[in-house]
């Protein structure tokens, strides 16, 4: 008899996350900060503000302006990444701002700017999800009023299987990758991207799997925030 064992490259089950570590308040100079270690991803997020808007013309007198910046360290990937903004990091910065903005009560700080900086120290697929997760923690740590926490997680299709939280090898060799961010309280989707080809049923399956992943990330976020005050 032939025994078929379905294991992924790092031995996880199909609906299993990588090990995630979160820490809040790691940078002294920022108003709020967080560090997330998600498998081999290492991501710092820092929040500055609310503060004066620069350049001045971006100021809105009914709400705050949210600026998100994503950047990768030159040593974060296998081949050295040329430092500075590029097409990819500008895009991720933009989708991150879109994922976070619905959660923040921007109307509380008119004529000001909230700056979110996400720095990837080490990348291993799924950095935008780790970045959004870290940025949410940093925003809460900065005392910015929020409607709820944003949790993010990816799912995808590898070897015709729908799996949760793709790692580097799976992302490179897989058929599709679906990063997802939700407002955990209402399950409103704030970020949904898809890279690859899947059938309609597979997309549904991937979505429900990713939402399950987001929920466990949400629990970890709550624990990380509370543990800063020794609870």
């Amino acid at each position, binding site marked *: 008899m032939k025994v078929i064992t379905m294991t992924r490259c790092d031995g996880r089950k199909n609906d299993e996350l990588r090990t995630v570590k979160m820490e809040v308040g790691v940078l002294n100079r920022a108003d709020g900060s967080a560090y997330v270690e998600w498998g081999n991803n290492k991501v710092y997020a820092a929040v500055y503000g*609310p503060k004066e808007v620069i350049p001045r013309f971006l100021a809105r007198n009914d709400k705050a302006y949210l600026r998100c910046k994503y950047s990768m360290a030159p040593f974060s990937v296998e081949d050295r990444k040329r430092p500075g903004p590029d097409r990819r990091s500008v895009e991720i910065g933009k989708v991150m701002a879109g994922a976070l903005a619905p959660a923040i009560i921007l109307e509380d700080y008119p004529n000001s700017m909230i700056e979110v900086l996400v720095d990837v120290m080490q990348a291993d697929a799924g950095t935008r999800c780790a970045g959004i997760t870290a940025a949410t923690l940093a925003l*809460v740590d900065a*005392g910015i009023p929020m409607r709820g*926490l944003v949790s993010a997680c990816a799912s995808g299709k590898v070897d015709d299987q729908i799996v949760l939280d793709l790692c580097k090898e799976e992302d490179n060799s897989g058929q599709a990758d679906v990063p997802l961010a939700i407002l955990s309280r209402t399950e409103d989707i704030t970020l949904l991207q898809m890279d690859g080809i899947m059938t309609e049923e597979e997309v549904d399956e991937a979505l429900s799997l990713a939402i399950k992943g987001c929920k466990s990330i949400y629990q970890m976020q*709550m624990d990380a*925030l509370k543990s800063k005050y020794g*609870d």
Partner: protein
Amino acid sequence: MMEIMVGERELVVPGTLLAKGKYSLGGGVTREGEEIFSTMLGLFYFNEERKQVRVVPLEGKYLPKEGDTVIGRIEKVLAGKWLVDINSAYLASLDPKSALHDRIEDLSKVYDVGDLIFAKVDYVDEIYNSNLFTKSMPYGKLRGGALVEIKPTRVPRLIGKKGSMIYMIKQLTRSKILVGQNGLVWVKATSGMEDLIKRTIEMINNQAHSSGLTDKTKEYLESQIKEIEVEGDHNDEM
């Protein structure tokens, strides 16, 4: 139906369901239909009399409020007013009318860029444009001393109930301390004491959410002051 979902002084995060029903809203909460949620990382409080739920935040920037006393630093001197950094997201303005009794040509002769002032927030509008007031005592320029920065959300803890904490620190260290609601604290004392006060304030800032802080601080101050005095005696002998 009215229901409170979390305990008094419990730590809550944004999005935590606090209560259901027609309660009045304090700071740090928002209502969606019947349900009331927290918007801040903070401690939950419920006022039985006023049926009010609120969350006192543990983090956050200062927002100017009418009647607050603040410590500010002059950022810019314009032709008709000063712009003052009050450690907030917004600059405050100081009009010569609410700073001086006489007309004066060159405003920088009164307060120049970088000067520290102790002021009252006189007026704040909807988009947080604020005017300060320094015309009478004890407001005005702060000369000498040292500036300590704490989190604005921790200021009530540094002051204590009816000023108990700050009064105790002043008494024990025989120093001048001014606390701004915006999280800036001005200290004037002998140099040894100044360091001790800085350390004490730092301690209060870091342990603001623990209870019995006034007693702990008193113990710490008394032991440290003894040490300073012993050291002083020792130096006199040599």
